[in-house]
């Protein structure tokens, strides 16, 4: 019904009421990882397959919501995997199925290397373009890359990966509305955004990488196929937050001692074989893969407190994927930083929009508008 009324007036009715709050020419960035959701967890666990066609459908739903909120421009990452091509083609021929006016979609001019560097480059360009929010569609790994470059631009996180603890599984239409509300200033970002935590990993005194959810020290000798599915290889686990209903490595902590995303501390667990140590927890370390894991030690880690990895060799997994190999000569440190990226709380944003009368038209609102003019 809302869309019908919007179409009649060709703009969102209450935007006029909120003129004083509106940002000029608001733009939004949309980052779609075309490669998310293809790792070995489809074989060793029962991880879902997320097709790029569905990611494109999500983008169309996002665009419809952004258009309704008066977002004029959207900047997207180009790719050679078919996502950009699908969207460009559909927009050109009007086959996107959106009845309302859509924002103008610009694909960023940048070299495409078909790898993680594309995400880093695209986010930098979006930030330089002054977008008011960035919608990220990917897994924990994609969000980790985005977090390195997004600065203080609010992120709307959408899960399209394997077993994600960081981004939310949300309907793209609502996520698009939240992004549009924040980018346009119809709700105040400071009221609805939460700064997330980051685990920073230093190798031999230099910053090496980050994780948004967990850092796991494993005995696996190589990065290999990246995912972790053998619980006996897990040695230490650092979590920035751990939710009881999470899937992935953070669930080991989440099922013993949950840590809120908003708290200013994390946890450090030392792990061992089931039956040894202080307790054994059966946790969903991957979709459909519940494994018993022994916990031999657990302590809180405060922000900025440097933790030294005890293991002499192995690999470090960041948000569930082996990324760093280390040996006897390497000194690995992990510490919690509470100054991570700003994340849009979608529920809170929509609640704020309701309080601001963004989506409704009443006589009172009309009166306010006339008085203001």
């Amino acid at each position, binding site marked *: 019904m809302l869309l019908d009324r919007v179409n009649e007036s060709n703009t969102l009715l209450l935007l006029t009421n909120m003129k004083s709050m509106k940002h000029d020419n608001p733009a939004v960035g949309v980052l779609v990882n075309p490669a998310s959701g293809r790792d*070995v967890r489809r*074989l060793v666990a029962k991880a879902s*397959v997320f097709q790029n066609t569905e990611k494109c459908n999500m983008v169309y739903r996002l665009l419809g919501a952004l258009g309704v909120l008066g977002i004029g421009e959207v900047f997207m990452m180009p790719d050679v995997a*078919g996502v950009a091509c699908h969207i460009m083609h559909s927009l050109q021929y009007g086959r996107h199925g959106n009845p309302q006016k859509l924002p103008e979609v610009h694909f960023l001019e940048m070299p495409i290397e078909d790898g993680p560097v594309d995400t880093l480059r695209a986010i930098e360009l979006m930030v330089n373009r002054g977008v008011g929010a960035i919608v990220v569609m990917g897994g924990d790994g994609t969000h980790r890359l985005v977090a390195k470059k997004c600065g203080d631009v609010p992120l709307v996180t959408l899960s399209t990966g394997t077993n994600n603890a960081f981004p939310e599984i949300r309907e793209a239409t609502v996520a698009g509305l939240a992004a549009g509300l924040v980018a346009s200033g119809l709700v105040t970002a400071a009221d609805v955004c939460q700064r997330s935590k980051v685990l920073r990993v230093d190798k031999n005194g230099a910053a090496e990488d980050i994780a948004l959810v967990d850092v796991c020290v494993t*005995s696996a*000798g190589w990065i*290999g*196929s990246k995912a972790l599915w053998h619980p006996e290889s897990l040695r230490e686990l650092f979590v920035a937050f751990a939710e009881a209903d999470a899937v992935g490595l953070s669930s080991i902590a989440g099922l013993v001692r949950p840590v809120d995303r908003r708290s200013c501390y994390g946890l450090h667990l030392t792990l061992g074989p089931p039956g040894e140590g202080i307790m054994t927890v059966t946790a969903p370390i991957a979709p459909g893969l519940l494994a018993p894991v022994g916990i031999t030690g657990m302590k809180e880690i405060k922000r900025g407190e440097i933790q030294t990895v005890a293991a002499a060799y192995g690999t470090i997994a960041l948000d569930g994927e082996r990324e760093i190999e280390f040996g006897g000569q390497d000194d690995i440190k992990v510490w919690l930083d509470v100054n991570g990226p700003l994340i849009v709380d979608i529920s809170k944003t929509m609640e704020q929009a309701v309080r601001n009368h963004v989506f409704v038209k009443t006589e009172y609102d009309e009166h306010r508008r006339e008085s203001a003019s």
Partner: protein
Amino acid sequence: MSELKKADLLKAYRTMREIRDFEERVHKEFATGKIPGFVHLYAGEEAVATGVCMHLNDDDRITSTHRGHGHCIAKGVDSIGMMAEIYGKKTGSCCGKGGSMHIADLEKGMLGANGIVGAGGPLGCGAALAAKFKGKGGVAVVFFGDGASNQGTILESMNLANIWNLPVIFLAENNGYAESTGVKYNVPTPNIADRAAGFGMPGVTVDGNDFFAVYEAAGEAIKRAREGGGPTLLECKTNRFFGHFEGDAMTYKAPGEVKRQREECDCLKIFAAKVTSAGLVTAAELEAIDKEVAALIDEAVEKALAAPTPTEADLLTDVYVSY
């Protein structure tokens, strides 16, 4: 995760080195004009065949492609016999009658290189069906390329394999080019593995330049097949260092593309760096393997050149199997 002992690491390196040296030598020998027919070289893709075949035994079957030398060596086929076969000599693996594109060794479970793109799919399903009937945990691996991924034979085989729950692994070697056509021009999805969902089987994509990534994923897929879990589509993204065939000028590749791949994506360099930096194998041990393999390839060429060619009397032998 990777429970590989030192002996396994040395074996993996030796296999990859043997494939590389074999192919580099065939590249040189072909230029002399003494090798009949066509050759399609596997250099650059060694980690794939090696990472997969390390999990197989002689009772397991593989089907191959026109680019089959690497699969043969990884499955244990004798390089001396292979070189003679490529030279068309009587001492070759198939008595000099098959050549590069038809090398086979049934005792090793190598059902043959194949000149027909996508032909390995139905053959692999047949081998897997036989293994299923035998009930001894045997598996079949179908190696195919990104070009063959569009062939009806491969797609029909995937369908059949899933209907019959066959112990088969569809191993897509995505080297980026179907002959001279870039994969982005003929495969509509970002990954060949994306197609697995349409057949109801797991689809996984790994870095085919990383032996360890291939070894881990292939190990899980093969274990699953042995235990009755059914087929898997495993895609390994890799690179070929030579043209589609020897003589291909590779005008469809970007300037410097192969040079960059040889510098940055060489599976042998990546492997050597990992195992030596981890202190598991020394550089001296790898150099010893290099020398041993170089001598083997020299011997293979010398013996191939000296061997007799088949005679008219051999023309009608080995054509049909007698039961």
